[in-house]
């Protein structure tokens, strides 16, 4: 009798890449739901657009590269990329924005670098940066949170706005952003930045309606939802604690120092943690295994770098939110970090500087 030969180990943990990716997507659901509640159903349409684009682009390039299309599509990595980009884009942004961004993320940032596992940059963030630099206006046209909106928007309005730039009632995106006084409302981070640059103190700026409890109206809840999702990922051991802790800790630490030194010109650390894309970035973006550091020490450094860069760009840079840039800059340093943070192998002496 002849038997099948296999190499050891013969036992395998039943947790595949595809399952990991599905868990990531699942963990993002609360955040997306809260986002849809506060910032409109547009996010769901964006999500749909992004996923379709991502799968089509991925399939096309995989076919061109002569890979097993179905097997690779089913690893769900394209799905996660699409999801992360879709939630990062303003809910009512024109449809082509997310299509261009997703196509760029999948084709250029991911597949042209060699496909899953070989991309230097986080595809979603690289695409976000491309869109932000190329199309700054639509990319920053966030609607105020639902309680502040003058017109209530139905799902149909979301479809109309995204595909025609006008809601079904005929309002343009800039009209939708206006408050009762006809003034466009920016995001809390943007508002704060503008006000500080005009000589307002933080406290004065915070009195504006876009701010709510602890941070921006609606944004706090969105961040909280992503934090919950992140904790779920940690609990599921899909991600390790080092990167998110380092990101949040570093952001908190830097903003705490700045806030203690000058509370009038700096936002509070908690405001920083619950504003913008902080929680999404810390748990879902910075933890992208492909573009993050892989060593234990390296993950701490990588996370701290992201948090620090985010603080610096938010406080002193030209863009109100900063995580896309912070993550990309940190991605660039990963090979170096990995090289210099190799763990000490059993039985070997510490390699000194290394």
């Amino acid at each position, binding site marked *: 009798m002849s*038997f099948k030969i296999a190499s050891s180990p013969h036992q395998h943990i039943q947790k595949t890449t595809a399952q990991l990716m599905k868990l990531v997507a699942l963990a993002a659901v609360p955040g997306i739901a809260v986002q849809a509640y506060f910032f409109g159903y547009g996010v769901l349409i964006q999500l749909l657009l992004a996923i379709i684009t991502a799968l089509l682009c991925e399939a096309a390039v995989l076919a061109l590269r002569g890979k097993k299309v179905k097997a690779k599509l089913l690893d769900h990595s394209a799905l996660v990329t699409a999801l992360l980009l879709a939630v990062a884009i303003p809910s009512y942004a024109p449809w082509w924005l997310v299509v261009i961004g997703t196509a760029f993320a999948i084709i250029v940032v991911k597949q042209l670098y060699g496909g899953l596992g070989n991309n230097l940059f986080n595809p979603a963030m690289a695409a976000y940066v491309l869109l932000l630099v190329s199309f700054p206006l639509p990319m920053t046209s966030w609607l105020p949170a639902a309680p502040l909106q003058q017109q209530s928007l139905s799902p149909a309005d979301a479809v109309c706005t995204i595909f025609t730039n006008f809601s079904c009632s005929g309002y343009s995106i800039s009209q939708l952003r206006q408050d009762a006084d006809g003034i466009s409302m920016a995001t809390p981070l943007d508002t704060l930045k503008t006000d500080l640059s005009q000589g307002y103190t933080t406290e004065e700026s915070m009195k504006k309606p876009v701010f709510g409890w602890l941070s921006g109206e609606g944004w706090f809840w969105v961040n909280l939802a992503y934090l919950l999702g992140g904790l779920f990922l940690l609990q599921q051991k899909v991600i390790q604690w080092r990167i998110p802790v380092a990101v949040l800790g570093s952001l908190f630490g830097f903003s705490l120092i700045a806030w203690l030194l000058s509370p009038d010109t700096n936002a509070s650390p908690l405001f920083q943690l619950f504003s913008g894309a902080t929680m999404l970035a810390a748990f879902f973006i910075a933890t992208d*295994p492909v573009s993050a550091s892989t*060593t234990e020490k390296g993950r701490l450094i990588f996370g701290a770098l992201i948090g620090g860069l985010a603080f610096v760009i938010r406080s002193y840079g030209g863009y109100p939110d900063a995580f896309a840039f912070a993550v990309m800059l940190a991605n660039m340093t990963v090979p170096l970090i990995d090289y210099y943070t190799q763990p000490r192998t059993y*039985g070997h002496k510490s390699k000194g500087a290394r």
Partner: protein
Amino acid sequence: MPTLFQQIQAGKVWDFHGGIHPPSRKERTNQKPVALLDIPDRLYIPLRQHIGVAGKVLVKVGDRVLKGQALTQAENAMAVPVHAPTSGMVLAIDLHTSTHPSSLAEPTLVLAPDGMDEWRPRKPLDPEQVDVYTLLERIQESGISGMGGAGFPTHIKVNVKQPVDYLIINAVECEPYITADDMLMQERASDIIAGIEILVKLLSPKAVLIGIEDDKPIAAASLKAAIGQKDNYFVREVPTKYPSGGEKQLIQLLTNKEVPAGRRPLDIGIVMQNVGTAFAIAQAVLDDIPLIHRVVTVAGETLAQQQNVLALIGTPISDLLNACGFQAEPQQRIIIGGPMMGFAIADWSVPVVKTTNCVLAPTENELGAASDEMDCIRCGACADACPASLLPQQLLWYSKAKDQDKLAEYNLSDCIECGACAYVCPSEIPLVHYYRVAKADIRETQREALKAEQAKARFDARTERLEREKQERLERNQQLAAQRVAQQQASGQATQSAAAVQQALERTQQQSGQSLDKEQIIAERERKKAEALAYQQQKQQAQIATPAEDQAPGTAEDPRKAAIAAALARAKAKKQAEAQPEAVEQTAPAEIAPDMDAKKAAVAAAIARAKAKKQAEAQPEAVEQPTPADTAVPEVDAKKAAVAAAIARAKAKKLAEAQPEAVEQSVPAEIAPPEVDAKKAAVAAAIARAKAKKLAEQAEAPLQTEAKATTERALPPERQEPATTPEQDAKKAAIAAAIARAKAKKQQNSEPL
């Protein structure tokens, strides 16, 4: 701060990096007693079951062996014998598939048990009464090698010169499924402790640490009970985590020490033995039972009865499985060892060997076969799991790139192939397999490098040897040359020329110091040549005088004879033609004309014919010219003489081609005196000699043939004479005789040469 020993005494257990928690599935077999199997029909006993070399076979096909009888004998330290697990007959000693991942065939003894299970005489030892060497000898003779996995000969591992701080007994058994050691401890704890006591006698450690995973409470309790109140025996329960049973990991767990890379545990004062080995030692020493059986866990959901069995070494795996109710499924895998580090076998006729602790026959559902390998997403789960703190994802990258330098930098050699990385990999990359291939490549490269190095060393050694031999030859030659000089001087025979040669030799030696032999030979040859030349000249001078005297009494006054001689001389003068053709042609006819009469001419013609004949031997074409002259001989007139002269000329010309110098030397003398007298004849004779000599040199023929030819040359004129001029017989004969004499003499002269 308490010392390490104090911490150990206090029960502290450390941790190691990484590790995984695969489902252990030990509960299936760790509550059933170890089953005994029927003696199988055939036992396949590989001659080598350990790391090292096989012993010498002591039995031959057809022999009946008794249970426990040694089948091989250790002839060197790295050898341990194998024993007959039961009594029976040796059927064959042949190649059989090995119980090894490679499945290579290896020399295996096939035993047909006779069912009597008859023991050889046994000689139990009392460890208290015998010395260490007796114990070591018994351990080796009982065929004991490490039973945990590697199979290193135990007698070497426990024969140490360095002090041992800790004897660690590995009872961890961290691989899923396997409960062989667990069951052994549950059933035979006191024997195990007895074995450990023997090890303690051999090693004298500061403490004995028994490491056992905390999922074996019964075994741990049994051991503790067997230890009783012994000092410095510590049973340490370590948390269940794979691979805490790895040697390095267990050392780290129990002592917080790391074995430095490339070193052995002994270098940090630690010796580790498997609990099964301790049991085998106890059996060997106390009961004189060599290593002929072992406990094997037989598990997997394809079996009706998953259990531990006491299997004889050499039992085919098929027997084990069938005894446990094996039902194969399609794509069935059979794994020797655990699911993490065991190897799959294709052929289930392979036997149980000393290191076989488990046979797994899982269903597909139970241990899923590896699915398709996906891309590495650099999640780092492997690095988190690695007990050696390696970076498996980097090693994978460099393994694929075959970058051996980087693999070395990332310490591939420290990989223990535990499989934790591949176990956790979400992309199902067979990491360990990649590393095995890379390690094999590196070994191959190292072998190549070693071979290249050896080849270079060989080449260098050869070059050096050739140079040395050359120098030796040179020195020897110089010595020999010096000896020769000394000998010559000593015997007083050193001639001037020899001295000159010696000087010349020395000069050349100084100049080049090489090709001495050759130059010596050349110089020697030159010297001999010079001697020969001198001798020849002396002889010639002597001969010039002698023939003249000889001929004087019989022929001197005869003008006719003189005329003949003159004719000869003329003919020879023609030889000069090459150098001075005009002069010869002018003089020769003038000389011939005045003295020409019939008889003389006839004689000359006869001589010329004889010579022509001789030449014909060398050059057949030339014969055609002389022939007409021969036929014309009866008509004795001036024309004939002219013809003869012409023939002679032709002959001379031909000769001249070979050696013009000799002719030149003698010819002027001939031409100078126009008068026909005795002197001329003498000169002519000399010329003839020279010519003959020249011919001899040319032909390089043996002297006898030359002599014969000479006689022949002399004879023809006599035979032809009756036809021509009968009345001149006596005179002609005399002339011919003179010529013949001269030629004979000349040949004699050439002999010494």
